[in-house]
């Protein structure tokens, strides 16, 4: 009859557990299963750089060096014109990077780094983490600074020999920097439907 006893015991334990369960529910027990994250854990996963320069790395480059890197790593995709078919969404093509100045607000808006992007740090932030498309993070920080410099130079925002690094990049003034209106939590009254 050991089995019977065991069942009885389990039942009693179960009832006891229920009672305890209720009594413990009153002061909420916090669940804590996170482990301490080391600096190495963070550095591996955190690639963001900010408009004020936060988290920009050491290194530097100019458009002169960037021109060659662009030819070798970027040019193949960034020359394709967007397709015409309505099945193809230009959103999904490689971006047009230069030109389009003065087109924003017209029916032929062409949003490029020069005509649209409000922050220079976004260029470095995105290109370093995501480009070249088939081999992101494969270049050095100085090479990414050089490509950033080339993209800004080709958009007539900086000069060919301007040095771009963690101190100079945040100070670059983008042409379209004042055009963005915050829409969270509510979009400005003027653009709501009547």
């Amino acid at each position, binding site marked *: 009859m050991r089995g019977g006893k065991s069942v009885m015991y389990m039942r009693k334990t179960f009832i006891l557990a229920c009672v305890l369960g209720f009594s413990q529910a009153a002061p909420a027990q916090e*669940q804590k299963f996170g482990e301490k994250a080391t600096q190495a854990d963070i550095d591996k996963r955190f690639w*963001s750089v*900010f408009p004020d320069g936060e988290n920009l790395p050491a290194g530097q480059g100019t458009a002169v060096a960037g021109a060659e890197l662009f030819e070798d790593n970027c040019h193949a995709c960034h020359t*394709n014109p967007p397709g015409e078919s309505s099945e*193809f969404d230009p959103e999904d093509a490689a971006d047009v990077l230069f030109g389009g100045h003065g087109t924003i*607000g017209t029916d032929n*808006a062409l*949003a490029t780094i020069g005509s649209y992007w409000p922050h220079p740090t976004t260029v470095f932030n995105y290109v370093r983490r995501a480009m070249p498309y088939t081999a992101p993070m494969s270049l050095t920080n100085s090479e990414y600074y050089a490509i950033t410099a080339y993209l800004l130079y080709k958009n007539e925002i900086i000069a060919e020999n301007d040095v771009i690094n963690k101190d100079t990049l945040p100070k670059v003034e983008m042409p379209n920097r004042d055009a963005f209106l915050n*829409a969270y939590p509510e979009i*400005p009254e003027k653009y709501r439907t009547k």
Partner: protein
Amino acid sequence: MTDKKTTIVDATDQAAGNGLMSRRFFMNSALATTATLVTGQSALAQEGVGVGQEDWTLYPGDDTPEYGDVSQFEKGRVKKLVAPPAGGRTASSAGRTPLHMLHGTITPSGLHFEVSHHGVPAVDPDKHKVVIHGMVDRPLKWGVEDLENYSTVTRNYFMECSGNTRVNWAVPKPDQNFMYMTHGLVSGSEWTGVPLSTLLDEAGVSKGAKWIIAEGGDSGSLSRSIPIDKAMDDSMVALYQNGERIRPSQGYPMRILNPGFEGNTSVKWVRSLYVTDKPVMSRFETSKYTDKLHDGKSLQFSLEMDCKSVITRPTNAVELKKKGMYEITGLAWSGKGKITRVEVSADGGRTWADALVEGPVHSKMLTRFRIPWMWKGRPAVLQSRATDEHGQVQPSRKALLAARGKQAYYHYHAIHSWSVNARGKIRHVYA
């Protein structure tokens, strides 16, 4: 089931112009359907040796598979993939949900729309961790198995890309690619995960924190800034979709889910959550997913999806072959909360009738509506108009374009129109 067409409808059941009937009609037809099923069963009884039976009745079927698939006759119900330009390559992988072929409110996981800007990574869950760091008392990390220990929440939510219906802004001729191009970037699922607030509380968020910068583990480390009030409200780290682990294209093994926000903010394969006092101004919140206005300005952080609806049947994927009583049905949703009302018009918006809003209605989830319609063989323009619990009413296309211009690209949410001609052919039109 064909009894629906022979049910006698009183002329007083007319609810709006051009044949829209009262939703009360559904109560009568439900009774008629039940009666048909009961009497229909005795007709199935057979005697004799099965002459004239189909093969599937006469022979045992296949063994059950480990993971079930759709019928071999349903293989056409698939996502529409983005076609690259001739000789070119796409910079992202996108698939659109065939809403015109589906019913209910839950999108099958394999048909959930997807936009993956840098392809779909094959993340090994044993090597994946998410860290919370920045303005916190204790930087912490979690793997999938760690997160499995927490009390979870399970909720139904829609997800919509803010580029959904973008063709209707500026493309001069209304798109006729069924619903793929116009509405294929919205889907609905049951999501299960750990509230993001639980993890943020454990790390201890510092005073003055305003944003969370989420980064994914894909080959673009896609990143977005999420307002901290949202993160502490209903955002979650999702592990399951429709009862099973989320699929690779949806962020396996873990993703951020920001209910009601534009899909891109729900960062997939999430591995870093940086708590800070400012947005990062990533590519996807500056160059993309900002709405260009007619005056040269742009809306940024237009995060909440608008109140919107669309008729999913009938559409230009079907035609009306004979006059009679049809059901008009579709989906409505709002990023702000619950859908409270859907009106339908059969005369291009001159008159409107209330559709039946099918419950239970979940906040920030697709909601199904239905209304009976007597088609008398005359031309019609079918439209739906949704209202949410905050009083947001879906605008006309004219009103939306007047407010923002034609170049906004994102957040198109106006009333959608299907024209029916006298022969029963259906087209997407601007009306």
